[in-house]
């Protein structure tokens, strides 16, 4: 009888522990339902402002401007999707910052379960609750507004790309949090990351509206995988675009995981060396 290689057993244990952390995170987020409700209200306020903004732009349709390229129903649903993802991603960087700065990380390093994967899994659990809550709120607002629903498989594409996009968001914020090994506060890194999400992720305007060179940079960045692809799926849903977006998301997911692993090791080495 062949025994299972130890690395498979170890990976199995880690995945089981991550699943448990995910369940705990999900349960904790659901238990704090007033916070979820507050987030849904925030989502509503964001949509109120941004939809009012784009409706105003669309209503004018100035000749010779990009306004003529706005979709007939406006950008309401696009904004709803990108904000849905943005507001669902938990502030994992704050937890990492707190633990790294306060020294709360050290006791975790003595435990058999890896701290970082456990933290990411727990936050992903909370994110799932937010994704579900905000999806319900978004669909409710869409129904009340009387705006057209995404055509064809648009909604299905958005669901898949949105959930993976939010997961990529967690990884991006994890990178921000890990800068706490070198920076006292992660705020500067966070601000830069957020603005890159705005610009290259298409949170402010669809990247298809950008000049060619900027569009290419944005589309090739992880920020498009985080936000823009899911948003584009409601503007022009197609199987080919969906498949391409899925491929890019898979690529960025792997690349970000690798980057996190490397930075984590470098950060831990610094912590061991300098305290």
């Amino acid at each position, binding site marked *: 009888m062949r025994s299972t290689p130890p690395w498979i057993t170890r990976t199995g244990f880690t995945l089981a522990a991550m699943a448990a952390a995910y369940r705990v995170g999900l349960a904790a987020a659901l238990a704090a339902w007033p916070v979820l409700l*507050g987030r849904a209200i925030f989502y509503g306020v964001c949509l109120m402002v941004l939809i009012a903004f784009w409706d105003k732009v669309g209503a*004018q349709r100035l000749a010779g401007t990009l306004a003529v390229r706005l979709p007939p129903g406006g950008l309401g649903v696009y904004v709803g999707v990108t904000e849905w993802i943005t507001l669902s991603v938990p502030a994992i960087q704050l937890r990492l910052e707190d633990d790294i700065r306060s020294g709360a990380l050290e006791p975790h390093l003595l435990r058999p379960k890896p701290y970082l994967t456990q933290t990411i899994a727990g936050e992903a659990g909370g994110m799932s609750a937010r994704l579900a809550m905000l999806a319900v709120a978004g669909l409710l607002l869409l129904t009340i507004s009387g705006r057209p629903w995404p055509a064809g498989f648009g909604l299905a594409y958005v669901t898949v790309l949105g959930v993976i996009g939010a997961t990529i968001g967690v990884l991006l914020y994890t990178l921000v949090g890990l800068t706490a090994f070198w920076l006292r506060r992660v705020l500067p890194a966070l601000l830069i990351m957020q603005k890159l999400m705005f610009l290259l992720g298409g949170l402010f305007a669809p990247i298809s509206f950008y000049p060619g060179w900027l569009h290419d940079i944005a589309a090739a960045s992880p920020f498009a995988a985080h936000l823009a692809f899911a948003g584009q799926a409601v503007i022009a849903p197609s199987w080919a675009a969906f498949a391409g977006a899925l491929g890019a998301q898979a690529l960025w997911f792997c690349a970000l995981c690798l980057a996190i692993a490397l930075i984590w090791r470098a950060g831990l080495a610094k912590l061991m060396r300098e305290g």
Partner: protein
Amino acid sequence: MNVLTTYAAQSLAAVRTSFADRTNFALQVAGMAVNNGFWLVLWFLFFAGFRQVGGWRLGDVARMLGIIYTLFGLSTVFFGGYRDMAGAILRGEVDPLLTQPKPVLLRLLARESVPSAWGDLGTGVAILIFGARLDLGGAGLVIAAIAIGMTAWISTSVIFASLAFWFAGARSLSRDLMDFTLMVSTYPASIYSGWAKIVAFTVLPAGFVAMAPVGLVRNPSWPAAAFAIAGAAGYGALALMVFHLGLRRYRRGATPGS
């Protein structure tokens, strides 16, 4: 020492404390400046493609952002205690101030200065100097608009923070309400109509923090000035009333956590 001297001394001490870790201070200021610069670039890209929104052009938005960043920067550098005043109330940090002769509200406002706010202040002033094309009269109006907006913003924040005298969950709620108000403030006033406009002048008074003061700079008139000043003064009076009602409750021990 009179009240203002005490406030100035405490506020300057808070500012000096925020300078203490110089690397952290520089990083936070630079991060905020880059953040604000990005936001301006986004607007630049937007107007390159869409030219205007409801009659507002890039210059109008730049002036609006310059005013908002400056008033937010000044408020958060010199009255930075408002940011976590709800937390301070819930943690019982008002107790030692009650035994002292100086006004509690000013002491709470002056207890903290946020380093990143210098980034807002720097960006705001830079935009106003280099991007707003102001003459002397325009500069006077901008200073008035900043003073009016600051009064409305700090008053609004005090009202939100004072909810902590009544509700245990007011810390995150007040932060959220401040964020909502800031968000509504940073878009051109021309996009709001109907219910959105009513909300912007009442529950989340971005109307008095940004829209009315910026409107005064865009189209100066005595009625516009009276409206902006009356709004800020009204919110100031409301903030004092709500805070002191709450403080009375706190003294009775009826506040959550007190």
